[in-house]
């Protein structure tokens, strides 16, 4: 099956910054992908280039097998509402949704109406005057009701309170179940979206740190807690992601899933095992990567 999105050695340089550094990935389609990373890691840049809203410095990008630039055939099947999306002067949400219905061939007005009610979006007020959360709701509604073959959600929940976020996640799953398509969700609230995404793509400092199935990553790490001497002995042969110490008690997060024999060994030595959430794992991996690149930069100097 050909990939719906193919990125090969994509780089994007600005004068003093490398926003994307030799990024390559291939997305099969009809799945929910999580594009995770810190602020400024390169998530929005990547999505902008995929939708021809920004331009690569080098490397190439193919969507549905074609280059997206000025390509109506490809672009009409994509929807990308960015995090701080601009709307026409004095436009109201009603105007915005009318516009969306003109250009997205799969637009579902009924779904839009349902979402408008659930998010309690005031339709007659100009978008300029909406709160941050209501502004996000407009973007989320356009993204969901467009039913575009590839839909990008760029940190869609900014300004949305926990209730509204849950509405978004629930409606997203519901609509995705009934109308499977490709959804790429960028977020830094990893634990909130962990159960929604089938694949985790972590970007840090313009590079891809991780690109795997979510379940494969879930048991990728474990935290061992107990007497520091015992813990250190046990983790000696493993890759350490993070270490905390309080008095004589050490808490060390290591990479690598444990077999049941190993688990038994650990508990037998009086140590405790704690699970590592996806968010914790990614945070630790990211911290480790920046520590390592910081060290490299030191060496180069």
């Amino acid at each position, binding site marked *: 099956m050909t990939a719906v999105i193919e990125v090969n050695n994509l780089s994007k340089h600005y004068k003093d910054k490398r926003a994307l550094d030799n990024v390559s990935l291939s997305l099969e389609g009809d799945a929910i992908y999580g594009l995770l990373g810190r602020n400024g890691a390169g998530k929005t840049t990547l999505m902008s280039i995929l939708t021809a809203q920004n331009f690569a410095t080098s490397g190439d990008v193919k969507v549905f097998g074609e280059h997206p630039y000025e390509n109506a055939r490809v672009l009409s099947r994509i929807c990308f509402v960015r995090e701080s999306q601009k709307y026409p002067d004095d436009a109201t949400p009603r105007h915005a949704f009318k516009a969306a219905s003109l250009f997205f061939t799969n637009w579902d007005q009924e779904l839009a109406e349902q979402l408008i009610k659930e998010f309690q979006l005031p339709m007659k007020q100009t978008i300029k005057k909406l709160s941050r959360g209501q502004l996000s709701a407009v973007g989320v509604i356009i993204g969901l009701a467009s039913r575009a073959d590839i839909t990008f959600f760029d940190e869609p929940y900014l300004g949305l309170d926990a209730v509204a976020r849950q509405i978004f996640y629930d409606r997203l799953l519901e609509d995705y*179940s009934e109308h499977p398509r490709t959804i790429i969700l960028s977020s830094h609230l990893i634990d909130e979206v962990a*159960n929604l995404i*089938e694949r985790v793509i972590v970007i840090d400092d313009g590079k891809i740190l991780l690109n795997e199935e979510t379940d494969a990553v879930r048991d990728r790490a474990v935290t061992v807690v107990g007497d520091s001497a015992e813990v250190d002995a046990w983790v000696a042969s493993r890759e350490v992601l993070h270490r905390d110490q309080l008095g004589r008690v050490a808490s060390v997060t290591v990479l690598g899933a444990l077999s049941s024999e190993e688990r038994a060994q650990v508990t037998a030595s*009086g140590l405790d095992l704690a699970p590592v959430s996806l968010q914790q794992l990614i945070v630790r991996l990211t911290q480790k990567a920046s520590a390592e690149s910081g060290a490299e930069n030191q060496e180069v100097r």
Partner: protein
Amino acid sequence: MIEEGKALFLQIAEQIEDSILDGSLEEESKAPSTNELAAFYRINPATAAKGVAMLTDKGVLYKRRGIGMFVQSGARELLLGERRSAFADRYIDPLLAEARTLGLGADDLAALLRERAAVAASASTTEGNPA
């Protein structure tokens, strides 16, 4: 309900197995659909599908064309057998580890076990008898 550090599709499968074991999901009855599971646990339908697929491979569920997934007859026995062998790993080993920390030996444990089992048995009989 959902734990960290463990593959989600395995957890979903386990939840279904639990309900088969405790009788709330009977053999030859219809199992929840992928979309129902996804909505209930608020997870991606593909993950739910993986869990269901695993149970099908195991012989716990089977597919009736055009209708959906059903619980295989004999599934309960199958799962009981599986859980019994895993029982020692899942429950006994942690129990022993904790007991060691508290300075309880195997005999102390055995006495405790018998004592608590008696209490539990009498509690369920008094519950069964109308007051």
